[in-house]
Structure formats: structure tokens, C-alpha cells
């Protein structure tokens, strides 16, 4: 191995791809089909999806970073257990911080924050990327994959909350009632008697976790019909 020092830009095209690829072409949820379990469970409200996405981005990014920093010191026999210790520590930190700062949402997400430990995306990135790449790139890869997961979560969350509950960001300080009898926004623009789409009855199916399976299926369908690269991946 030559030790010729090659100057690489801090944020060149390769780094850009690390961030962008998992959001689109190599999305952990829709292409790799990882982390679907929590995507079904926490997407009933947008606010919950956003908090969960931030938690996962933090955990993937920093576990990637830490694992990459110590990758040359980890004995291969205890590789996985060492990665798990790092992930579990970070997840517990997230849980403690959330409990101290936003108790209500911690209560809502309850067990699913702890279950980030078992989220295949995290462990998968450590094994596939962080164990063999530099810390900075691993960190970006972590952010990219967390974002890829988060984007899907938020799309599903928006659809489920909007049509299942008629609101957006319920539970947060900026709750908006969008459709149904008591909407805040549209009634001032379109009609003054009861609000736009006041005839709409909330779709109970969308409040159930099973609806996110359909929604993720539709997202996969749309993505594959637009992006031919993904079709013959097998």
C-alpha cells in the first residue's frame, strides 16, 4: 500500500452521493426494506414521525462515527457485540434526553425509541459501511441513511394524519386542523360555513398501522416505476 496522500475535498461529489443515495436510489425503507417495523408503528402522527426520524438520524450518524473511529481496535470476534454496545448507549442517551425535554412525546413513542437498537438500518450501516470507511464519510453515510428513513416516515405520517385525523402536527405546539369540520386554514379562503372539505369523515383505516404498509407499498411502486434502475435489482 502506498502512503501517497491524496487531497480529497471535505464535501465532494462522493460525499454528496453518500448523503443523497440513501434518500433516493438506495433508500433503506423502500429499496432495502429495512426498518419497516417502526415505520408502521410510529407514523400515525407527523410529529411522532419527525421526532422518531431525528432520533434515528442521531443514532445512525453517531454510531457510524464512533464505530468508524474505533474500527481498527475492535477485535473481529466481538465485533457485533461492540457495535451493539455503541448503539444501545446512544439510544439510551436519546431516550433520556427526550424524557427530560418532551415527556409527552416520550410517552407516545414509548417502546419504539428503545427499539431503535434493533432497527436493522443502524446495525446494517455499521457492518456495511462504518467498519471500512473513514469517520467523516461514515458520519455522512449515517445522516444520509437516517434521512432516507425519516423522509419515508414523514411522507407516510403526513398522509395518515391528514386523512386519518384531519390534522397536521397534532400534539405539537403548531397543530393545524386541515380538513374536516374544524379546520383552521382553508375556511378563511374558500368558504366560511364550516370549512373546506367539511363533508370529509376521517378514514379510520389510516389510523391503523396496517395502512402504512399500503402507503409504503405505494411509495415503492411509484419509486420503481419512475426509476428503472431499481427494477432489475435482483
Amino acid at each position, binding site marked *: 500500500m502506498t502512503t501517497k496522500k491524496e487531497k480529497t475535498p471535505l464535501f465532494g461529489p462522493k460525499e454528496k452521493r453518500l448523503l443523497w443515495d440513501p434518500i433516493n436510489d438506495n433508500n433503506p425503507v423502500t429499496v432495502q426494506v429495512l426498518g419497516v417495523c417502526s415505520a408502521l408503528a410510529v407514523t400515525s402522527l407527523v410529529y411522532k414521525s419527525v421526532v422518531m426520524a431525528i432520533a434515528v438520524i442521531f443514532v445512525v450518524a453517531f454510531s457510524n462515527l464512533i464505530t468508524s473511529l474505533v474500527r481498527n481496535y475492535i477485535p473481529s470476534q466481538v465485533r457485533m457485540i461492540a457495535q451493539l*454496545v455503541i448503539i444501545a448507549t446512544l439510544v439510551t*442517551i436519546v431516550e*433520556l434526553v427526550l424524557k*427530560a425535554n418532551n*415527556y409527552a412525546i416520550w*410517552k407516545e413513542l414509548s417502546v419504539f425509541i428503545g427499539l431503535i437498537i434493533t432497527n436493522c438500518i443502524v446495525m446494517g450501516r455499521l457492518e456495511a459501511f462504518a467498519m471500512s470507511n473513514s469517520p467523516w464519510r461514515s458520519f455522512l453515510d449515517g445522516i444520509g441513511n437516517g434521512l432516507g428513513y425519516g423522509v419515508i416516515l414523514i411522507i407516510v405520517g403526513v398522509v395518515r394524519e391528514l386523512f*386519518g385525523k384531519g390534522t397536521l402536527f397534532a400534539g405539537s405546539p403548531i397543530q393545524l386542523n386541515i380538513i374536516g369540520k374544524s379546520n383552521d386554514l382553508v375556511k378563511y379562503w374558500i368558504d366560511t360555513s364550516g370549512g373546506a372539505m367539511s363533508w370529509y369523515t376521517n378514514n*379510520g383505516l389510516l*389510523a*391503523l398501522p396496517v395502512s402504512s404498509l399500503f402507503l409504503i407499498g405505494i411509495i415503492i411502486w411509484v419509486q420503481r416505476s419512475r426509476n428503472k434502475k431499481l427494477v432489475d435489482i435482483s
Partner: protein
Amino acid sequence: MHNTTGYIIKFTVALTVLAGLALSGMFYATEPAAKRNEEVFNKRAILSSIASHLDKPLAQMSDEEVLQIFKDKMEQKVVNTKGDIIEGAIAEKISMKAESKKNEADMELPIFTYKGKDGNINIISIYGNGLWDKIWGYIALKDDNKTIVGAAFDHAGETPGLGAEIKDNPTFPASFIGKTIFDGDTYTSVKVVKKVTDPKHQVDGIGGATLTSDGVSEMMVRGIKYYLPYFQKHKK
């Protein structure tokens, strides 16, 4: 060199110690805030049963204001199922989950009395089973301990959109307001039914959530019954 047993042991010990230190440090740093949040959260849950009798919407109240209400306007007592007041016990410390496992004779039940602009309101705590998991609630009664002036329910795992509506749909707890738990001197409680025939003692159930509605109904009958001896002894 990285594969010797000695190195592996050293590595795992170092990693565990570091992770342990990081976590215990984090725990001590966040514990006071988490404890306070939990206290405020529970107090908000109690206040949500008398939301319409508060001076200000609960959602707009800061944590300090919630704590202030409990300091200034809330009186707490603990009673047993014989109707006696248990001296020295603190209502807030009572866990209904733990009480529900005891024999009826040993139960200790919290009563919060809110002294607000609408006179004294007694808030009692009830606990029961929904379809999937536990459900619980706070029932606010007028000073005569007969008329319901507010209610709030919560659940551990009811289905969103169906059973979870006992908490998420504000019209369900609001439908209890104005009902009475006595018919003359006979205890009737307030039941959740499919079709209301007796509007004084019944409320409409939630469509598609019959079993959760039945759970609420059963909880209302049994939960309030524990308090009856106390109501009887302290009649005004």
C-alpha cells in the same frame, strides 16, 4: 495482536466501562428534569378532567402554572373502601395500577378537591380493562358527589381511531358532563351503551369500539363504587 484473548477482554471491559460512565452521567444530568416532567404530566392528566372549569385552557398553561394550581387550589386526600380518610397519605403518590391488584378492603383511593370559581369539585380516579390493555380515567364530581362535571380517560394500548378515541376524541369524555351517578339514592353510575335510553345515566358508545366502550362502562360502575362509602359518610 487484536485477536488475543487478553486484548479482547481488555477491549470489552474498556468499552463497557466507557458506555456505563456515559450513561450514568447522562442519567444524573437528566433525572431532575425527567422527574419534574413526569410530575407535571400526571398533574395535567388530573386537570384535564376539569378542563372546562379552569381559568385558562390547559394546553396554554405553562408547567409552572400547573404546579401552582396544585399548590394553591388543590386539596388531596386518600380514602379507603370503608369510607375513612387515611391520615398522612398523599393522593398523588397512589398508583391505581398497584391498588387495582389489592383486595377491595385494602385499597387506598385518591381524591383531589379543586377549589375553583365553580365551587369545590372532587376528582376521583378509576382504573379498568379495555380491549387490549389497561384503561384509566379521572371523574370530576360536583360537591354533592352525584353530578359529573368532567371526565378524562387514557389507555395503554387501545386501537387508534377506535378504542383510542376515548382519549383522542374530546366529545367522548365531554358526553359524561351533566350525567348523575345516582338515581335518587340508588347508585347507577354512568354506563356506556349503544343506544341511549336513559340520558341521565347513559352515554353513547364509540362506533367500532364496543369492547373498549364496555370496558369504560364496567370501569365507571366498579371504580366509582369503591368511593361510595366515603360519599355516604361525608354527605353534605
